[in-house]
């Protein structure tokens, strides 16, 4: 028994010697946790690329550690704990499902700072950050309304969560601005990324008579189907430039780099504080891809102006009068939606048919 114990002690000492050298640096260590592989072509890849831009910006002044394909749940909690133990100063957790694990681990490491993407819970050392993608939806929605000839546009929904419902409402409201007769058909997929399902859904919407399809899922499969059918669509999360000039008319691009640079700078300067931000076109978090394809001059001028107005704050995509689906009043003439209602949006606006699954 004694022998075994001394062996353990010796092993532990050896581990100490071997492990000591790796932790000598004292530049800030920035961790990123991704839900998918860093080459998924969508969500995780954009976070990773933004992280790499941030790394390039700071050079040797910081160190970046990353972990990809981390399942949401028990594994996430372990990965975050290990990252915190390894001496990370700031950890970005880039998927909604990391919210509870982030809050749990943050409570155990008060000196480590956390930034959680797209959630709603914060703490003294946990910030939440998200993008106002509905601003981009206003622009792609207007284009969809202007370009449809069948007066029917399709929308591929991922999960029936406020984020996606906002996108549907914003798209529909602005499609209607361009074309008062427009109708929207929604298909729910319950996934963020499944090229086969996305392609099937696109085909189903085309079969129902839609000739422009907006997607809230991350793959390029819908554009591939639209290309064959001669219909139109948009890049989602990425520019998807390989589908220029058609079927892709424009795109909504996630650009996290400016935010990452700003927050890492705050850690370097020692000025980091917890906050809950929601940035849009004006801050650069939501990018609008180049307008391509046979868009008429007047439509082009309108969306270009709209993009500027949203960026400057002169125009809010949810400005009254807007009624809810059941006809009850939501926003009065000129009234602008508050962030609280938008964050928890669980209703369609008037004119959208069908019901939200629950």
């Amino acid at each position, binding site marked *: 028994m004694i022998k075994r114990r001394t062996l353990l002690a010796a*092993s*532990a000492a050896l*581990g100490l010697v071997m492990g000591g050298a790796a932790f000598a640096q004292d530049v800030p260590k920035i961790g990123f946790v991704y839900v998918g592989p860093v080459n998924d072509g969508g969500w995780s890849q954009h976070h990773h690329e933004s992280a790499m831009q941030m790394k390039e910006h700071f050079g040797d002044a910081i160190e970046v550690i990353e972990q990809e394909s981390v399942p949401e*749940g028990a594994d996430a909690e372990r*990965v975050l704990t290990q990252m915190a133990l390894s001496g990370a100063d700031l950890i970005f957790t880039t998927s909604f499902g990391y919210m509870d694990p982030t809050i749990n681990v943050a409570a155990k490491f008060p000196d480590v700072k956390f930034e959680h993407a797209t959630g709603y819970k914060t703490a003294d050392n946990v910030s939440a950050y998200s993008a106002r993608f509905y601003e981009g939806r206003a622009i792609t929605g207007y284009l969809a309304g202007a370009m449809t000839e069948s007066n029917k546009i399709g929308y591929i929904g991922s999960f029936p969560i406020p984020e996606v419902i906002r996108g549907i409402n914003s798209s529909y409201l602005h499609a209607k601005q361009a074309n008062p007769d427009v109708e929207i058909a929604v298909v729910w997929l319950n996934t963020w990324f499944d090229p086969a399902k996305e392609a099937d859904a696109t085909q189903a919407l085309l079969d129902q008579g839609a000739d422009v399809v907006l997607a809230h899922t991350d793959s390029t499969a819908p554009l591939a189907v639209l290309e064959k059918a001669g219909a139109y669509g948009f890049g989602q999360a990425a520019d998807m430039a390989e589908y220029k000039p058609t079927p892709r008319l424009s795109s909504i691009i996630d650009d996290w780099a400016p935010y990452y640079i700003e927050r890492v700078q705050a850690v370097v300067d020692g000025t980091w504080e917890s906050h809950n931000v929601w940035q849009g076109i004006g801050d650069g978090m939501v990018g609008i891809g180049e307008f391509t394809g046979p868009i008429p001059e007047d439509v082009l001028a309108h969306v270009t102006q709209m993009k500027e107005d949203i960026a400057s704050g002169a125009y809010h995509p949810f400005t009254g009068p807007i009624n809810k689906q059941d006809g009850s009043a939501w926003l009065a003439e000129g009234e602008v939606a508050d962030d609280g209602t938008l964050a928890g949006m*669980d209703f369609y606006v008037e004119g959208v048919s069908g019901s939200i699954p*629950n």
Partner: protein
Amino acid sequence: MIRLERRPQPSTLWTALTPVLAVLLTMIVGGIMFAALGKPPLEAIRTIFWDPLFHPQFASYSRPQLLVKAGPLILIAIGLSVGFRAGIWNIGAEGQYIMGAVIGAAVGLAFYPSDSVLLFPLMVVAGALGGWLWAMIPALLKTRFGTNEILVSLMLVYVAENILASASSSWLRNPEGQGFPGSRNFKQWPAVFNDELIANTGMHWGVVAAFIAVIGAYVLMARHIQGFNIRLTGEAPRAARFSGVNPARIVLLCLGVSGALAGMAGLFEVTGPAGQISIDFGSGYGFTAIIVAFLGRLNPFGILLAGLLMALTYIGGELAQLMLGLPGASIQLFQGMLLFFLLATDVFTNFRIRFVGREVA
């Protein structure tokens, strides 16, 4: 010239030796792969196998995590090994694991927010039942219609995944979750939270159940008549039939046991480390357990060690990603090598190598 010669009896020495050899070969070839990726190979191997146990910064945290990760693997693998001994190939433990979690959680959530002490045991039973029922589908189809249990059980994994998705986004969704998919979090419900039994040991009920299953499987296989029947069915099906073993009953027994254990593993996971039913709940334990069962030579105590070793490569692999920037896929490749080398070196168990001189034509 090298020739393989069949041994009259499988070598007991090699049976014990091949897992060790497989681990060593994995380290060597894995090290070469890491070197090819431009990472220091020795440091990578040390990070995977040594640091989770002895690293001064991580070990106190990652050592208990080994049990958390190994618990479900061992529990599922024990069940699978019983069937594999009889030549019944349940490949769908992942589906049974998911269904155990979904049905167990559903039964629990139906009583929310009860704080009865009976609720957790009830959920465990429901979880076992859920996995058992899901395994009974391939079992009955096999005994009644002679379908192939490999295909049916595997296909049912995808059905289970869709049921999981619908559960987390509709009928088990947290009504206070702002519309986001995912059930209530069991960690915030003390009556049913499968917490660590002793703080900082990683020991939760699922790990206890895994240890009990190891002993139970040993008794069944080594001491019980059904264990003998199971082995006989696997090794000599005709002899088994002549000696009066009912093959249908063996199929139902083996698939039933493995389904029930996988279902329990799912329930312990969802009420403990995972905390909630979510779309990504199934994290591949059911498939990894197949590797664990074979790595452990279908022997209960071997499976115990194999489960811990597998957990070590997971946790060490995460550390290696973190500290050395190894890509996630290289860790999966590394784990795959382990099974590959095990199967490759297995040839020595049944064959012996003969070096013979060039034969004169």
